């Protein structure tokens, strides 16, 4: 199953929830937001949303920034 995460293709053997995906990468879900196929995924549904082959995910977090890009 091929899934694009932050612009890079990842291969997963089995289907998994967003919650499980974050766990696999060691990401604290309270610090990120996820967009799946251009739609925001509510945090409360991470354990119910199962990622599919061909999904495009964006996982973002806050970094230092201000008046400069």
């Amino acid at each position: 199953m091929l899934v694009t995460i932050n612009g890079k293709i990842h291969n997963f053997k089995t289907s998994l929830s967003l919650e499980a995906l974050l766990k696999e990468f060691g990401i604290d879900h309270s610090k990120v937001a996820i967009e799946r196929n251009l739609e925001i995924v509510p945090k409360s549904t991470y354990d119910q949303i199962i990622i599919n082959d061909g999904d495009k995910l964006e996982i973002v977090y806050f970094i230092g920034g201000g008046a400069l890009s």
Partner: protein
Amino acid sequence: MIDDDPLFVAGRQFRSRLLVGTGKYKDFSEMAVAIKASGAQIVTVAIRRINLTDPTKPMLVDYISPKDYIFLPNTAGCFTVDDAVRTLRLAREIGGWNLVKLEVLGDQKSLYPNMIETLKAAEILIEDEFQVMVYCTDDPVFAKKLENLGCCAIMPLGAPIGSGLGIQNYMNIRLIVEQAKVPVLIDAGVGTASDATIAMELGCDGVLMNTAIAQAKNPIVMANAMRLSVEAGRLAYLGGRIPKKFYTNPSSPVTGLISE
């Protein structure tokens, strides 16, 4: 700061009229100390893809907490309506922030805002119940259009982002201040403390800066200077400066001189 002179933005009340960015510091520790020294209560933050290969490395939120500061997600680096709106929707999902800073840039070299796209993005975001503080050009007509759309703060540039040129547009800033019924904050262009004071003396409600502190030789000392300069400028504005005159007006009595 005088106690009974808070800044009101989108129904929220702030003691400090200085807003600061969190980018371009040497490291997170220096950033945290400098921001504390600035007295700022609102800090801008950017939204970027997480590094999947090393997600455990230190994060901004490990050094400054959303419990201590109002995080103001911004769209720095966005050049299209779509990117700006997507970015702020993601930011809202991270922690539920509705108060955001919108900027839609139009030119790589000057990072000058694209006002047509900024207006479109502001409309979409306000419809989606965001409270939008908006980075804009110093054109009073566009500033008014943004205010009429429902933006909660108008943030014109004093000079290009990161240029440190100071306030280059006294007349335009003053025109925007005089017409606005929402707070006007200078966003971009400040180089040193006196620039921030001038912005406040012009009647701006606040100043947002990042580079002038983060890239100073000693950011912590400069953060202190900026805090004081914003306060000084605000007090001078409230105090009401004397009019400028072409001729002298002695400060000592002109009668009772020994030569009389």
